[in-house]
């Protein structure tokens, strides 16, 4: 469907480097890329660095524990007051309590808002935006949603603490960091999953939960057709029983903990191989083998090519990437360099329709804006249907045109663009056009922009043009 509907405009290599691989041209990037587009983009793969004062997942866990303790105390106090009939004390304390609870709830919400907005702003202002696109890709690959008070606080810490440090390193390290991170363990309910024959299960009457194990295989590594069975799901779930999160206030410290008493004793048989390790090593070995499995290489390389290149990546490109992956044991930087080196990645017509996030980032880059209101940025993404950390499913947001190019979604995009253009009425659309798209533009779009009835309309038409909506 998308192939025949693409505009046939030929896009230049520099445009591809900047707009398809990066998050869109800002300032004079298009001119910089002109000389040697391939090496320009290859040199833009840098580690991403988070600066600024944002809470660590440990702080979130501590705040949450305080909140729960306070809630418990208040409940007790309330019932005591009602027993003694002390109504005055009761109402005074009630307002004090509400205030305290509100503060904790605000702590989580602020953490989420500030961190999600910070990532967006860095992507908008960065001079190596391809690296931020790569971060967003893996953040969506290991998607967590901010559901419930604790996850609201934790969701945005995962990409900072577990993904960014390994962005250009080995996939195995990223995988392990993610599956041991409190956000993922709590999101997919592994923190309370205990082996049916463990001491903890008997004492607490708790048992196994397959959720994380299943999604590790289906989404994070092998892919749904990666050749595993229901038994494998259960075996992996057992292998990672006891992978949990400390409860501040009730035990010393915070963050990931291995609860040996909750681990299912005995050997595991997983994907046809025997695992006779004891304790945490057993699950780690399973994750190591999953990371090294050729099905994982296939699954992740396909997703990368599908995201960075086109809807149906050519087999020859996938082969090159998979070979590099297997040769380097899943080195992400090597795989990305291989993608940039492949001619198949440089198809000279538009291949992808921008997701709302890509569209908003590239628009603000094209306008070379440097200052934003966090709230406005985030409400834009909410209205366009891609609120950060709110995919609502561990599969993350879709990367397909058909999921974003709906009638209602397009109308919302037009409405937002009209609004943005009305805020930037002094902007010269012609300049923005040459800076962001260059000469890869159809006569029709060029004429429409140049002959628009107002500057505002010219900018709206440019940003909503097929050339800007696609990459």
């Amino acid at each position, binding site marked *: *469907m*998308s192939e*025949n*509907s*693409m*505009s*046939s405009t030929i896009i230049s290599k520099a445009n591809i480097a900047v707009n398809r691989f990066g998050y869109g041209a800002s300032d004079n990037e298009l001119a910089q890329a002109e000389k040697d587009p391939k090496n320009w983009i290859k040199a833009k793969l840098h580690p991403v660095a988070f600066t600024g004062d944002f809470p660590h997942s440990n702080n979130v866990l501590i705040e949450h524990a305080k909140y729960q303790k306070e809630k418990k105390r208040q409940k007790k106090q309330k019932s005591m007051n009602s027993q003694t009939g002390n109504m005055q004390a009761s109402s005074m304390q009630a307002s004090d309590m509400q205030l305290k609870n509100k503060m904790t709830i605000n702590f989580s919400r602020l953490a989420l808002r500030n961190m999600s907005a910070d990532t967006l702003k860095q992507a908008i202002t960065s001079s190596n935006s391809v690296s931020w696109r790569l971060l967003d890709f893996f953040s969506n690959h290991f998607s967590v949603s901010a559901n419930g008070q604790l996850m609201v606080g934790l969701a945005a810490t995962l990409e900072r603490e577990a993904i960014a440090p390994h962005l250009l390193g080995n996939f195995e390290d990223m995988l392990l960091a993610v599956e041991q991170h409190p956000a993922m363990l709590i999101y*997919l*309910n592994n923190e*309370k*999953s*205990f082996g*049916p024959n463990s001491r903890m299960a008997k004492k607490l009457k*708790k*048992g*196994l*939960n*397959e*959720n994380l194990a*299943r999604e590790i295989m*289906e989404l994070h590594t092998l892919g*749904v057709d990666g050749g595993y069975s*229901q038994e494998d*799901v259960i075996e992996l779930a057992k292998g990672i029983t006891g992978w949990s999160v400390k409860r501040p206030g009730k035990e010393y410290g915070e963050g990931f903990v291995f609860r040996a008493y909750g681990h299912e004793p005995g050997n595991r048989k997983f994907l046809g191989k025997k695992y006779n390790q004891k304790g945490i090593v057993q699950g780690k070995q399973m994750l190591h083998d999953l990371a090294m499995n050729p099905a994982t290489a296939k699954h992740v390389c396909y997703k990368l090519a599908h995201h960075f290149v086109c809807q149906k990546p050519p087999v020859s490109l996938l082969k090159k990437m998979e070979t590099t992956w297997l040769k380097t044991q899943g080195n992400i930087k090597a795989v990305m360099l291989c993608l940039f080196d492949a001619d198949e990645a440089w198809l000279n017509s538009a291949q992808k*329709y921008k997701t709302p996030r890509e569209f908003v980032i590239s628009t603000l880059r094209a306008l070379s804006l440097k200052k934003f209101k966090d709230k406005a940025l985030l409400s834009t993404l909410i*209205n366009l*249907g891609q609120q950060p950390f709110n995919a*609502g*499913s561990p599969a993350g947001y879709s990367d397909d*045109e*058909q*999921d*974003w*190019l*709906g*009638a*209602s*979604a*397009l*109308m*919302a995009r*037009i*409405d*937002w*663009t*009209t*609004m943005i253009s009305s805020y930037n009425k002094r902007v010269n659309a012609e300049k923005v056009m040459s800076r962001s798209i260059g000469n890869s533009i*159809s006569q*029709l*779009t060029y004429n*429409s922009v140049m002959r*628009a*009835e107002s500057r505002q*309309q010219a900018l*709206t*038409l440019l940003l*909503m*043009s*097929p050339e800007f*909506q696609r990459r």
Partner: protein
Amino acid sequence: MKNTKTINNSNDLPTSSLSRRKFITLTGASLAVLSFPMSSAFALSSNKQVSSPKIVWLLLRGALDSLHTIVPTFDQQYKTLRPKLSSSFKSPLLPLENGFALHPSLKNLHQWYQDNSLLPVVAVSSGYPKRSHFDGQDYLESGKSEIDHDSGWLARAIEVKNKRALAVSRSTPISLRSSSQVNTWYPSNLKDADDDIYAALDKLYQNDESLRASLESGLEVRGLVGDKKDKKKKRQGKFIDLAKSCAKLMVGEQGVDCAMLELGGWDTHNNQGTRLNSKLSELDQGLAELKAGLGKEWQNTVVIIGTEFGRTAKENGTGGTDHGTGSALFIAGGAVNGGMIQGDWPGLKDEQLFQQRDLMPTTNSFGWIGNVLSQHWQFTEQELLQVFPHVKPYNQVLLRS
């Protein structure tokens, strides 16, 4: 297959269907030149308006636990498999026939059952053999023996009968892909752009088919709902409001013949008791709004409620249930011959479970949906093959005669 009833409308008369086709063509043409308001195009059909049989397809994404929704209180195994969940109900279960009972949050649905307009079907499955949400949903939406991401069963059904559909969604779900008679609508709280921008964009999109198609259907729907006047925008996206708007878009002369709604949040791996108390109540209230909004049309309506698969028969270690197989289907509406349970109960003993783990499906969801299509929309067996190429419809009497 034998049609047990004739619905009181003239849709199968040649003159009427001709005028309907003509009307759709005219509507499309008027959109292409962006003539506003839309009402002039619709006025052509106004003197012949007879309300047509309507279908609402509601997909519960995330795998509803049917055993916690239609509870088999008579089955000895139930309490053994679910010691915690079986005692998590806050108020008494609502009795159905043969010892089945509805979850106490489903008050309105229970009333429908008593009014003979609700038909719960137990132990169904789409035939999807694995336990991935995403593939499971795609399979149920696609309705073919292999997942086809570009074609859905409801889209194929409206193509055969030349009906118009609406997806209450930001973009078209698989169920409604591959038909040109589908629109999407979803509330937005952005200020609408000016009309002249739309005209300019329509011109700009002349070489980009998909952008142009989305723009044109977006404009069509915006003209109908009039979201500008909607003051309650803060609550946008809540199921209850979506159901209300959905009803609005289905009634009146311009109302669509069928609509699709989605509701997520059913993946209850933990804390299922509490979560389903509120989730099922949200579902129940939304459906009540849908019925209220449909007004007289309710008598002409069939609502089909399905989910991608069921959940484990046994509760898990965290007060929830994991991905399973057999689940339930609800067929509801004023046109339904309800007040009874459909489907065969397979039992919950170890050897009766699928892979000794999940509720064993005894019938196929598409068989029931096919049955609805044949009785409600007069599909012949031949026509149904275009919708469900691999599943034959059942022939129980599901609708009122």
